[in-house]
């Protein structure tokens, strides 16, 4: 590898060819500020439009300043990152950006989490030269079941566009208009709900300002909790516990399961349950469906649809409804854990508690924004009453806890309530890419072979690579598995399946980078992908520590089938735990 010598702020450094000035500076502890540049290196995602011009530096011999994010180091280069010329330019450009940005920071949903706000503080902006009656670029506000767009706050960093177009290949957002009115929007500036948006929310996850945010349901939850006529139960998704702590100063990758359960109880939920329980249930249904399809396939049934595709991820469901309407019978018909939980809570559990359906409120805490859309889909309602009433994000839960004056850090560890709070390690790993399929393998193997599984950890299914494949020996029958996270990778895999290129039996797909741990409802990573990797480790560690690690061994799941459902894929299961998909193809 060719090495290049240069100096940055009088410090000599040697880097490999191709390294940018921004990266080289970082190596020697010089953090050049930037607004648009984002590098999620663990996931291979980069946004580098060189549009914000905040990261400019002075390079000897160069006429103008250079954007360090997109300027490669060259031999003998002399770089200065903090001369008066650089600082004045940086400040002036930021002032310009702020001059066209609303000044409502105090009531902005991104208050305290905004990268623009932080940058203004770092660069010491104290005033903005005001031209009398200076124009502001304003746009129509847009809201959807999951995401809100207030593009007056857009700084044209284009991160959302990169996520939506290049990473997710959804193509809902792109830059429109010219000059001063340039902004990222949907085609013809239509509402998001009329676009092919899947509500994955990755645009929200990377937005440096309050331009893209989630629809906030915290107040609705507070009201439900205060209503004495309601029995309010909560379920928490596996990925939430691996990230919630970050909002309270815990190191990324710290699991706060016990504290989270204690906090939810303090908030006043009548029952603190776990989506993990429903994840175990999903494995029972989806695993049985998989084995059923494989069985038929081996018997020579030509009509059987293989590979089976997982259907836990609501953004992924939206994605295939929009883009693969010809393949609607390929994904598993099993509902997502969130919806299975709601369906069981408002039937089995409500009956047990002797609570009427309409008097029960089910709240879900999700790492996800698409779940907000999912829970209000018509097919998940009974006479207009939704199985899951409100879905809030990890961030919204953190703000609820803070609002209620709960000192999260000093809470004791508490357990979930029963019966819908018991779960296995298999359910826990649903939160990471590859986890659902690993959980399914743990159960399907034992059911299919009738043998006890010797090895519980399927490391070949783990990792952060975008597309992974593995073959698992089911006692002589090789089961071929595909895994993709990020919808762009899912598209690659699906296009291959459509073209008959693959012989997979099962494919797991998660829309977000890293799976649910990288979901759009999680605490902001601000471009640091090591946070997502740390959350992944936390989940696998907690799985290892669990005594029961296979879904079919969950005693409360066994009981649920005995008392209520009969067996997986029974008629009752079909009624409550399975769904169907719709053609949402737009163009």
């Amino acid at each position, binding site marked *: 590898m060719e090495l290049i010598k240069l100096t940055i702020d009088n410090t000599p450094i040697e880097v490999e060819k191709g390294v940018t000035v921004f990266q080289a500076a970082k190596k020697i502890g010089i953090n050049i500020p930037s607004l648009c540049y984002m590098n999620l290196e663990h996931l291979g995602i980069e946004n580098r439009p060189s549009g914000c011009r905040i990261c400019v530096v002075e390079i000897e011999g160069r006429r*103008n*300043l250079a954007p360090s994010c997109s300027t490669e180091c060259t031999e003998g280069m002399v770089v200065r990152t903090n001369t008066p010329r650089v600082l004045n330019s940086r400040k002036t450009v930021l002032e310009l950006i702020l001059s066209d940005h609303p000044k409502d920071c105090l009531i902005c949903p991104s208050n305290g989490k905004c990268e623009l706000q932080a940058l203004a503080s770092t660069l010491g902006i104290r005033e903005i030269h005001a031209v009398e009656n200076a124009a502001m670029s304003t746009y129509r506000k847009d809201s959807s079941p999951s995401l809100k767009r207030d593009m007056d706050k857009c700084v*044209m960093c284009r991160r959302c566009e990169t996520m939506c177009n290049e990473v997710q290949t959804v193509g809902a957002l792109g830059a429109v208009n010219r000059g001063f009115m340039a902004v990222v929007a949907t085609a013809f500036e239509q509402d998001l709900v009329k676009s092919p948006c899947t509500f994955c929310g990755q645009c929200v996850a990377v937005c440096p300002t309050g331009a893209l945010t989630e629809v906030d349901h915290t107040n609705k939850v507070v009201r439900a909790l205060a209503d004495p006529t309601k029995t309010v139960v909560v379920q928490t998704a596996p990925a939430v516990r691996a990230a919630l702590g970050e909002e309270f100063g815990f190191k990324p990758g710290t699991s706060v399961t016990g504290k989270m359960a204690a906090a939810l109880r303090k908030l006043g939920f009548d029952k603190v349950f776990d989506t993990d329980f429903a994840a175990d249930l999903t494995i029972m249904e989806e695993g049985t469906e998989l084995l059923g399809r494989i069985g038929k396939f081996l018997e020579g049934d030509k009509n059987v649809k293989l590979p089976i595709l997982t259907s836990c991820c609501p953004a992924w469901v939206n994605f295939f409804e929009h883009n693969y309407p010809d393949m609607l019978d390929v994904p598993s018909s099993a509902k997502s854990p969130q919806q299975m939980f709601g369906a069981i809570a408002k039937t089995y559990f409500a009956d047990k508690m002797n609570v009427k359906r309409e008097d029960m409120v089910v709240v879900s805490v999700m790492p996800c924004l698409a779940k907000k859309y999912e829970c209000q889909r018509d097919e998940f309602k009974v006479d207009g009453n939704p199985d899951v009433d409100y879905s809030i994000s990890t961030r919204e839960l953190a703000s609820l806890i803070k609002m209620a004056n709960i000192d999260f850090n000093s809470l004791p560890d508490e357990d979930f309530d029963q019966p819908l709070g018991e779960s296995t390690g298999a359910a826990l790993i649903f939160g990471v890419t590859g986890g659902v399929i690993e959980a399914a393998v743990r159960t399907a193997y034992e059911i299919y072979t009738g043998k006890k599984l010797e090895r519980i950890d399927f490391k070949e299914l783990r990792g952060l690579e975008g597309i992974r494949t593995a073959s698992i020996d089911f006692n002589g029958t090789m089961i071929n598995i595909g895994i993709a996270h990020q919808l762009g990778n899912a598209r690659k895999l699906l296009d291959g399946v459509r073209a008959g290129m693959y012989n997979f039996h099962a494919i797991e797909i998660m829309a977000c980078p890293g799976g649910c741990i990288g979901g759009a409802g999680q605490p902001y990573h601000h471009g640091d992908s090591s946070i997502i990797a740390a959350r992944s480790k936390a989940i696998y560690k907690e799985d290892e520590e669990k005594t029961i690690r296979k879904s079919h061994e969950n005693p409360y799941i066994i009981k649920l089938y005995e008392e209520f459902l009969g067996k997986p894929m029974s008629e009752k299961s079909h009624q409550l735990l399975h769904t169907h998909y719709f053609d949402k193809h737009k163009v």
Partner: protein
Amino acid sequence: MEGKRGEPTVKPPFPAQSGYLGKPTNVNNVETFANVPVIYLKGPEWFSSIGTAKSKGTKVFALAGKINNVGLIEVPMGTTLREIVYEIGGGIKDGKKFKAVQSGGPSGGCLSEKDLDTPIDYDNLIAAGSMMGSGGMIVLDEDDCMVSVAKFYLDFIVEESCGKCAPCRVGNKRMHETLEKICNGKGTIEDLDYLKNLSHVIKDTALCGLGQTSPNPVLSTIDHFYDEYLAHVVDKKCPAGRCKSLKSYVINAEKCVGCTLCAKNCPTSAITGEKRVPHVIDQSKCIKCGTCYEKCKFGAIEIQ
């Protein structure tokens, strides 16, 4: 052509290295391409024999503005502005006084009287704060307001900005607004410093050639015609009488015969006076439309 939004990419790589669909692509002006066959036919030595040491050959200019002979001209590099304006262009229209030449298109700059004898080539134009650019040459006379000229070009730049990079997207808009403020008589001396700082920062930080040269009209007019800017912000006067907000129409009582023609035609009834007695214009009602100025047969209306 690639199905993407039209906006500049980061350079390097240049189009000649990686352009359309990642392939080496030759992007040049028609004039450049038009030179190629002649060079092929007559040889590079012949081409190099025309022009100056560093700028070879000829250059086509679009000569326009307050000049007698308007049109496209092709001159050898190194021709002086004086030759172009007075010999080829036939001098200024109506015998007015030469003020400046705006060269290089909207992102070019203004050359003043002191540049009249400078041989025109790439380097000299840049040294004078302008550029070859599009080869446009607009001749301005004493009736042209240099602040308005800068504003006019900025208007074009604001319109043409793609919006990708912040300094060009917002900075040019703010410069345009500031120039408007100055033309409206509301400018301050601080605004001039603001304009200068913005100009330098935009030049230094903008992503593409448009943004990097967009402050040229402002910078070069501030450099060459600073007095005119000062007149606008300090004296609240437009020396060329172009900025509407800065001019006022008054009636010279000695010349006015009280014919009432101006009062009858004034759309806002700002002019009052008895017959055969000098009239007066109420400045608070006057919208500076200039009707009285055109109607008066005695030259009694004066612009201040």
